[in-house]
């Protein structure tokens, strides 16, 4: 599968490495070349410098033939906009969008985007961890 990833942060860089080692054709976009240091050594995909909400940059990244598009920049709105472009302008079959703001995630999920809010998911994981029956704290030694 041909995948275009927008945003080479910790998640983007890691995802690019994972997909590539699974044998997928990966192109990763970032508007700061320094971000590409996060790609694993020996990464054989394409790292492309540019703004992912620009149609020409997306075309250069091969979005017209891509099977999937993932947006994981720090900006919710940038992610939303690029995913809507991928889905509605370039008709990419699979589009996944990271949206930190849970309310915005719900809205754009309603508007047809496949959206994930790390905020919601991580808060849930933390709650489960904290509420799980854990070994009790040892009773402090009684003061005499």
């Amino acid at each position, binding site marked *: 599968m041909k995948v275009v990833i927008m945003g080479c942060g910790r998640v983007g860089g890691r995802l690019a490495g994972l997909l590539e080692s699974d044998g997928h054709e990966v192109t990763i976009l970032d508007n700061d070349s320094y971000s590409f240091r996060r790609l694993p050594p020996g990464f054989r995909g394409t790292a492309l410098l540019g703004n992912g909400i*620009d149609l020409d940059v997306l075309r250069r990244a091969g979005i017209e033939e891509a099977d999937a598009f993932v947006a994981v920049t720090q900006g919710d*709105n*940038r992610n939303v906009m690029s995913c*809507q472009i991928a889905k*509605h*302008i370039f008709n990419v079959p699979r589009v996944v969008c990271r949206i930190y703001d849970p*309310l*915005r995630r719900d809205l754009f999920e309603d508007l047809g985007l496949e959206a994930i809010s790390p905020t919601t998911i991580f808060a849930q994981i933390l709650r489960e961890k904290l509420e799980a029956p854990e070994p009790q704290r040892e009773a402090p030694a009684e003061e005499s």
Partner: protein
Amino acid sequence: MYIIVVGGGRVGYYLTKALLAEGHEVLVLERSAAICEALNEELGSICIRGDGCETTTLSEVGTGRSDMLIAVTGDDEDNLVTCQVAKHLFHVPRTIARIRNPKNEDIFKKLGIDVTINNTNIILENIEEEVPTHSLTHLHDIRDKGLELVQVRIPESANTVGKMIKQLELPKDSVLSLIIRKSRRPIVPSSNTFLQAEDQVIVVTSHESEDELRAALRGE
């Protein structure tokens, strides 16, 4: 009308001032505390500090009862999302977005933003008007119909000077609406009107027919 302006930069500031002067109820959402304070000091308490893309902020400022939301921050993606949230979550009847990258105009339209204002194109249009040799000037877009209002100048050298309108082979979708004569007198043209040198012809046309129209009117 109750109008929410998102972004208190230069565009937001002058826009708000103009809207207030027209008697509208205006509320500005601005992320920067300093800009917010300056606006409130100068224009009265009209600015609230907050992110216009946050649904909670929008709900606090009563977006649900607003008649219009205008997003004029410097970032296209923020303006897009703000307008989409306003439209789909708060059912604001009219959303207007400022666009900086002209390529985004079509995208915004496809994604349901009612009106887009493209700084770059406006500047281009104004410059076009000031360049006297420019033969066709855009005056206005009639967007929902895919039509536009343009002005074509008839130079002295044009071989259509002295011809009647009905002798011209105009594109089918173009309608000559007004001719402004050298004497500054506007006339409504009929099929028997003669074109004169220095006429400025105002035409409703489509983007696709522009070249054909220019050629027909100027005999090129």
